[in-house]
Each structure stands twice: as C-alpha cells, then as structure tokens.
C-alpha cells in the first residue's frame, strides 16, 4: 500500500508514464465531478465536463507550476471548463428549454443499475468516524492539508515542524485512513 505524492505522480506522467495519471483521476474525480455539477446542474453532464477537465489537465500538465497544489490547479480548470460549457450557444438554447420534464429525465438517470455507481452518501457517513479515530497530531495535519488547503511549507511554518516530518506524517495518516476504510468496507 503506497499513496504517492501528487507531485511525484505528475513527474511520472511527464516522464512518459501516462498510466500514472489514473491515480490522479481516481483521487480527484469525486470532487471535480461535484464542482462541475454546481455549474451544470445535471449529473450526466457533470461527468462529461469532468472528463474534459481531466483530459485538459493531462494535455497541459507540462504547464503545471510545482509551487502550487495540484488540486487548486485542477479546480481552476474545472471552473473554467464548466463556465465554457454553460456559456456555449447550444447549451444556452437547451437551458432555455429546460422544463420539469427534463428534470425528471435527470432523476430517472439515477434509476440505472446501482452496481454501476458508488453510493457516496453511505460511504461518507463512514468516513468521519475514521478521522475521529486518528491520533490528534495526524488529524490536525490531514485537516490542514486536505480541508484548509495548506501547502507542506505553510504547515511546516505553522506547526514549527520540518517539511520532511510533515510529509511523512501525512503519508502515515493517509495510509491509516485507507487501511481503516478498507476494513470497514471489506474492500
């Protein structure tokens, strides 16, 4: 079990290992699809736009500045792509004709085979207890890095801790979360 740092994965992609990009898609798909959904208001469209977001990100990976977090960069691409999507003429026309009927169609799309979807509401309800179970120092690190979007450097300054220690503790916290998640979900 080994979760690599985003920057390591990006370096691997840039050196020609396209398959590494799968890890970034796996890691950020849930949040990016939700970001797109905030603009498209349709789950199928949100997945289509999110797919475009990841492809754009891959194409422009060489432009990524390593001094920022990958998710922040990806989030900006998601917002711009979603805005382009809703501003496109065709979609504007479609928006004008959105009716209760079309909303019902979207609802009906949820009647597809449940095996094809992750039920995230149920999964999310199991995550908070895992966070609460973490040792306090690791929980603080996870919250600072993953929720409040601090960089390693910022956390290092804030907690007066060497960057190497921040990295290794975050690594340990992630692995604990994944391991516990697997245990409760029998994955």
């Amino acid at each position, binding site marked *: 079990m080994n979760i690599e740092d985003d920057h390591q994965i990006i370096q691997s992609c840039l050196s020609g290992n396209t398959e590494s990009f799968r890890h*970034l898609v796996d890691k950020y798909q849930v949040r990016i699809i939700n970001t797109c959904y905030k603009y498209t208001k349709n789950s199928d469209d949100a997945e289509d736009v999110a797919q475009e977001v990841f492809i754009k990100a891959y194409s422009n990976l060489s432009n990524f500045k390593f001094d920022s977090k990958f998710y922040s960069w990806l989030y900006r691409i998601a917002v711009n792509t979603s805005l382009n999507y809703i501003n496109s003429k065709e979609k504007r026309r479609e928006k004008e004709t959105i009716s209760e009927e079309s909303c019902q169609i979207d609802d009906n799309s949820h009647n597809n085979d449940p095996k094809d979807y992750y039920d995230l509401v149920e999964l999310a309800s199991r995550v908070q207890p895992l966070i609460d179970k973490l040792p306090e120092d690791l929980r603080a690190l996870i919250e600072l890095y993953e929720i409040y979007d601090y960089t390693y450097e910022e956390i290092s300054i804030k907690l007066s801790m060497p960057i190497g220690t921040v990295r290794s503790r975050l690594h340990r916290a992630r692995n604990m979360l994944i391991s516990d998640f697997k245990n409760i979900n029998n994955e």
Partner: protein
Amino acid sequence: MNNDYNIYGKILGALNKDYLPRVSKNFTDSVMNKLYEDNKVINEQSSNQYLNIAASVVLAVITSFVLVSYDSMEDKFVSNDISQPEEPVKEVLIKKVIDKDPCFDQNENVINENNECK
C-alpha cells in the same frame, strides 16, 4: 491495480463534503480510454507528418536527379552543334554579295559594262 487512490478520493470528497450522491464506477476508465484514443490520434498525425516529410525528400531527390540529367543532356546537344564544321561567315557573305551583283558576270568572270553598271 492500486485501488488506494480511489478510496482516498472518496475520503477526500467526504471530508470536504464535496461529493454527489452517486458517481459512475467506470469514470476513471472512460477518462483513460479517451486519453489513450487522443494520444493514438496524435501519434497517427505525427507518423503521417513523417510520411509527408519522407515523400517530400524523395520528390526533391528525384527532381534534382532529373534536373542534373537534363543539364548534362543539354551539354551534349551544345557540343554536337559546336563540333559541326561551319563555313567561315565572311567568305559566305562576300560570295553572296558577289553572286547577287548584277555588274559582275560570274560565268565570264568579268565586269559588265552596260549603262547601269557605269
């Protein structure tokens, strides 16, 4: 296949309360397939470009060869023309002038002494 990234993605979504109730399980595969398709198209385009460049080079070589061959053939024609013996220009002209002179009887090789020639 490493499933840890997918699990951590769900944890991140839940932590940030940033998720839809349902997400397709095959989302990653469809992104990666699209990515490989696009890469394939790019590779095909670049191989087509190489073919175009190769064809241009071959065409240029053939054109150069034809031009060089034509030049050498032209040289041969010129040398043939030059090698043919030619009558000296001055003598021919003088002869023609004498031939057409009405005051000179070429058969008798004497000058006519009629009124017009006086």
